[in-house]
């Protein structure tokens, strides 16, 4: 961990708002992106990021500085996403849970009156609805792994530790997930 990050965490641990502002500035965009891509909704992304920051206010003292800070953050974030998805699934008369096939509609797609991913307050050029729809068709664990690779900048080994599965399995899932994304987005003209 670099000295600047250590100082910022130290500042935040003392309850200094400036320290939390710096953490939000440093990690907020990545966390927001992760939450949005994982849930498909800007409203959920903002809500989860806010909740995450409040959790930090209360739990930053328990962070063990020996571990990588962003891995710690994204582990919490992944747990929050998992809980949010479970809560959505538990909503009666909204979702069908019988689909185990990756080609089946995702829970998000089954929500009646589902909001399109475009919402106010987001720069229009950043909206990639096709990508979001493709992501939502991935099996949830595979989607999480793909997103944690990008937003959490996590190694395969770290993801394997987080999900409690073998290293080779993580790579195989991510590999298949990436291939499927390209197919779904209609740009499978891979020179490789």
């Amino acid at each position, binding site marked *: 961990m670099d000295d600047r990050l250590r100082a910022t965490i130290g500042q935040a641990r003392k309850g200094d708002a400036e320290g939390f502002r710096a953490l*939000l500035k440093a990690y907020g965009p990545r966390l927001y992106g992760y939450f949005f891509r994982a849930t498909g909704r800007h409203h959920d992304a903002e809500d989860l990021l806010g909740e995450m920051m409040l959790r930090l206010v209360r739990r930053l003292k328990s962070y063990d500085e020996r571990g990588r800070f962003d891995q710690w953050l994204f582990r*919490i974030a992944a747990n929050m996403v998992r809980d949010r998805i479970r809560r959505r699934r538990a909503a009666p008369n909204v979702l069908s849970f019988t689909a*185990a096939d990756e080609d089946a509609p995702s829970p998000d797609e089954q929500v009646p009156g589902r909001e399109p991913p475009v919402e106010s*307050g*987001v720069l229009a050029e*950043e909206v990639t609805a096709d990508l979001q729809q493709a992501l939502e068709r991935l099996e949830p*664990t595979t989607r999480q792994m793909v997103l944690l690779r*990008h937003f959490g900048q996590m190694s395969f*080994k770290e993801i394997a530790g987080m999900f409690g599965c073998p290293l080779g399995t993580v790579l195989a899932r991510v590999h298949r997930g990436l291939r499927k994304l390209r197919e779904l987005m209609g740009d499978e003209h891979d020179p490789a």
Partner: protein
Amino acid sequence: MNMILREEQYERIARWLDGETVDLTSDEQAAAREMRERENLLSERLDVHAAPEVFARIERRVGAELARPRVRWVWAGAAVAAAAAVVLAALWFLRTEDVSPTPAPGGGLAHATHQELFAALHASTDAGELDLVDRDLSELEADVLVIQAATAEDLRLKALEREIEEFWLDHSPTLKPIEG
């Protein structure tokens, strides 16, 4: 490229992609290259930019959370200070009034004992004003008690919340795959 790889090959490629020194076969190298290309391509599209007001709203939530306990202590301190001020005012009032039926030797109320002050308070003929002070004291005391009770309750809730969170984090060392 749709080559079939075995689990141990995937593991070797993963270790190589993580930066370890691993000798890959040509098939494994091709798969690793393909993985990297696909990840890079996806990375260009994945980032999402939230509007600045999103972060401003979150900053306000964090600020409010940080300020909450301090505000409580400020209010509790203010109530105690107000109560002390009323007590001092009452003492000052007793001192300026000739309330002692039998002045203490030396003539001043400053030398009166607590018992004498108590007796003087009860013997006072200006019962209306004393009642007013008494009522003010009671109200302030009630305010302080309410604040103290709220703080204790909040502390209990906070402790419970912490325990739940710690349990939640301690018991999820690994993320179980979400069933599809």
